[in-house]
């Protein structure tokens, strides 16, 4: 198990290095110069040259790359070209908002999805299953940004009950105690509902398939033949085994905690990482894009490893296979 983890970690480091290199090359191969963007069309060529020199853009690509990599590993992620703030501080400031939103929606999607999937699998091919299937397929197909706009239309403009923008009201600094928490929850409601509705569509479909796969296994028939009650079969034999694939999926969604809500954040003006990333890409803010990509790639790799660990934890057979390998 440990040896496997070491191997995976080594491969992971190679992947992250590859992603970072690729991003670096793409950024610098693309037309458009951050110095020109920063100064605007009226800038004199000497000014542009000066800024390019200050940003080290006039040095050879390999030198730029090596110096970026050295500083990144040391934890110095540079300063944003557009805002002038340290990149690390920018991402750290934006991260909690994204993590709070995505973590809650993951929790709700998995709980609800498992429930819906289990109900469907237990009543497989009945009318209830069909109805729920139509519902989950539809939820799964909803574009997040459009669902967000629809919810804003209904709850903000028509019913006038929930705010549509930001993570806190303009008067948040003057509120205290419960009023402040209520204000935050009200702002959280619509983005959370958007992400959760779409998430449930996916997790329920996945859970239904996973549970049906287990139901077809011989040991389920054996348990039933022994006279184990149906509810006990479902709880002890089926759900326990269907949990493995669900945990793998959960592990794979780890990177979402950092950058999983780009579009929904854009719709709701949620002050998270997704919005920072979209703005950075649009303004060629090289240091921000590079750091965000590197962190995303790290999380993808970590998520893959976490998924394997979770799978091994949930299923002793996988653990055994890993030991033999």
């Amino acid at each position, binding site marked *: 198990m440990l040896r496997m983890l070491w191997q995976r970690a080594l*491969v*992971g480091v*190679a*992947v992250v290095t*590859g*992603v970072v290199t*690729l*991003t670096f090359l*793409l*950024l610098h191969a*693309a*037309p*458009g110069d951050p110095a020109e963007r920063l100064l605007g069309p009226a800038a004199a060529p000497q000014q542009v040259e000066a800024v390019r020199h200050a940003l080290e853009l006039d040095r050879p690509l390999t030198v730029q790359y090596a110096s970026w990599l050295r500083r990144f590993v040391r934890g110095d992620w540079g300063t944003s070209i557009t805002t002038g703030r340290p990149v690390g501080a920018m991402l750290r400031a934006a991260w909690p908002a994204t993590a709070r939103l995505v973590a809650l929606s993951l929790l709700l999607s998995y709980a609800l999805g498992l429930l819906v999937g289990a109900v469907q699998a237990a009543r*497989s*091919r009945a009318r209830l299953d069909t109805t729920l299937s139509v519902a989950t*397929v*539809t939820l*799964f*197909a*909803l*574009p*997040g*940004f*459009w*669902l967000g*706009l*629809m919810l*804003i*239309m209904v709850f903000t*403009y028509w019913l006038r009950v929930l705010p549509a923008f930001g993570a806190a009201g303009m008067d948040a600094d003057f509120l205290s105690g419960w009023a402040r928490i209520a204000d935050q929850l009200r702002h959280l409601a619509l983005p959370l509902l958007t992400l959760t509705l779409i998430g449930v569509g996916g997790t329920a479909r996945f859970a239904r*398939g996973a549970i*049906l796969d287990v139901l*077809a296994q011989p040991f389920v028939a054996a348990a039933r033949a022994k006279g184990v009650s149906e509810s006990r079969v479902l709880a002890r034999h089926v759900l326990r085994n269907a949990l493995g694939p669900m945990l793998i999926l959960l592990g794979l969604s780890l*990177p979402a905690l950092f*950058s999983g809500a*780009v*579009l929904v954040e*854009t*719709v709701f003006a949620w002050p998270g990482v997704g919005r920072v*990333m*979209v703005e950075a*890409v*649009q303004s*060629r803010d090289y240091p921000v*894009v590079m750091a*965000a*990509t590197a962190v*995303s*790639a790290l999380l*993808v*790799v970590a998520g*893959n490893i976490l998924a394997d660990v979770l799978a091994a934890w949930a299923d002793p057979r996988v653990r055994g296979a890993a030991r033999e390998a």
Partner: protein
Amino acid sequence: MRLRDPRALFGLTVLAAVAIAAIAAPVVTAGNPNAQRDIVATRFLPPLTADLHGTFHPLGTDRFGRDVWTRLVYGARISLGVGLLAVVISVAIGTAVGAAAGYLRGWPAMGLLGFTDFALALPRLVLLLLLAALWQPSAALVVVVLGLTGWMPIARLVHGEVRGLAVRPFVEGARALGARRARVLWRHILPNALTPVIVAAALGVGNAILLEASLSYLGLGVQPPTASWGSMIASGRDTLVNAPWVVTAPGLALVLVVVACTLLGDALRDALDPGAAKR
């Protein structure tokens, strides 16, 4: 596949209807999707009204007085076209890489598999944002970007199938008869390996259509005034209060088409894979 499967029937009907409408766009609509007349008199007309010129607007007009139905149908050309072409690119690359990795031995196979795993670990949305933002946005760029970032799961699928098929007796038989390796792969292995690819392609089209809409919504895809469903939603978001139909119509069209693709994919999987058909 049995057409008695209601999912397949629904999926095919919806996709066929949308495709026919998109192809016959000049016939089923008023014509030019970017046509503007008297902007003050014809903007924000609600659905099912006629303007001063007597032109009927089944889905109303947007803030420039453009007919939403016409834009929706012309937008289907972009959305469906981008989705289909992107998946064609993904399937072509994925099948080539997967087949090569599954059929070759030694370091070339290891290299291809490693590359696939590497590409799979790239954060797709970040990559999409980067590629789409760094070059001049256009429908063609979206096709290429979606195609280049979507082939990895297909390569994995094909790799698994080819590895399994390569040791089957009928392949050994073909080898024993003296068929060249390329011919064995092309004539005997690949046709049998394509089943999961068809399913993945059906699901992939829906996904690609959604991603195109997302990119266009962020302003990184199809550029105005060209109509795509994503860019229509983007252009209508500021007028959500006065003209909700501008956003609602393309969104519903998106959901309908993506549901159709998903159901068709599900039905195909169950029909083509007898093991899963018991569900």
